[in-house]
């Protein structure tokens, strides 16, 4: 077995763990950590397919990951700022207690 499926399986496990954490935990910061794990799993897929792909000299996978890291950093900054702003209003970071807009 060549290593490519190994990397893909590692990425799939990380994605599932992040998704499970984002859906199951009640703390909003941990939901954000789960989203970060899912983004990183996707990045690992890009790098693996770039390495084992047909045209590695095009650098497409590498550059996609670089831009993805930049976007993820922006997402983390804004997400954590939102969580801090919400904490000021509700004095909680639990997603099941933020029910002000619930119908």
């Amino acid at each position: 077995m060549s290593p490519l499926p190994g990397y893909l399986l590692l990425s799939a496990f990380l994605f599932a763990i992040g998704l499970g954490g984002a859906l199951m935990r009640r703390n909003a910061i941990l939901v954000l950590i789960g989203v970060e794990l899912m983004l990183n799993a996707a990045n690992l897929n890009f790098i693996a397919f770039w390495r084992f792909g047909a045209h590695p000299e095009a650098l497409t996978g590498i550059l996609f990951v670089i831009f993805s890291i930049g976007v993820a950093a922006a997402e983390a900054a804004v997400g954590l700022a939102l969580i801090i702003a919400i904490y000021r209003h509700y004095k909680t970071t639990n997603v099941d207690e933020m029910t002000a807009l619930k119908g």
Partner: protein
Amino acid sequence: MTLSFAIIASVTVAAAVAAMGLRNIVHCALALTVALAGLAAAYLQLDAQFVGFAQILVYVGAVAILVVFAILLTRSGDPAHPSVLSPGWLAGAVIAVVVLGVLVYPIARSPSISRTLPPPAGATVHQIGDALMGRFVLPLEVTGLLLTVALIGAVIIAMREKEPIGTISNPGSEIANRKSQIANPP
């Protein structure tokens, strides 16, 4: 190659499970750091040195610190909840397992299993810089704009809001205001 990959993969998955499963949220953030460092090691093993070190700089350096700061700023004094799981956790677990199955099944069945490792590609920093300044210059500029907007937006969102007029958040200044109003009627 295989042994080092096995070590990196098991450490990364174990750290990710710990990051999502531990009770103490600070421990979760530290486990997340280990998982991200493991991913950086996987990038280095795949001959993507630049991305590996960028991952360490951005994620292990900046994002982890940001998460720890957010945790410490939102720590409340009241005792922890009896459960760390949200009410709909069972549905979330089922969805995660189904997604894992959907992802693993095609990987196990795909012909990529027989794909052999091509010779090292060698993505040097020189080549990456050439591509960033040539073919990918527009995405680079857009990313810079996005980061600027995110920086300003994060500061504005997290800034303490001004209290609306009439609330007595600072009784001393309120009394001083009233006194000046009485002294100088409009």
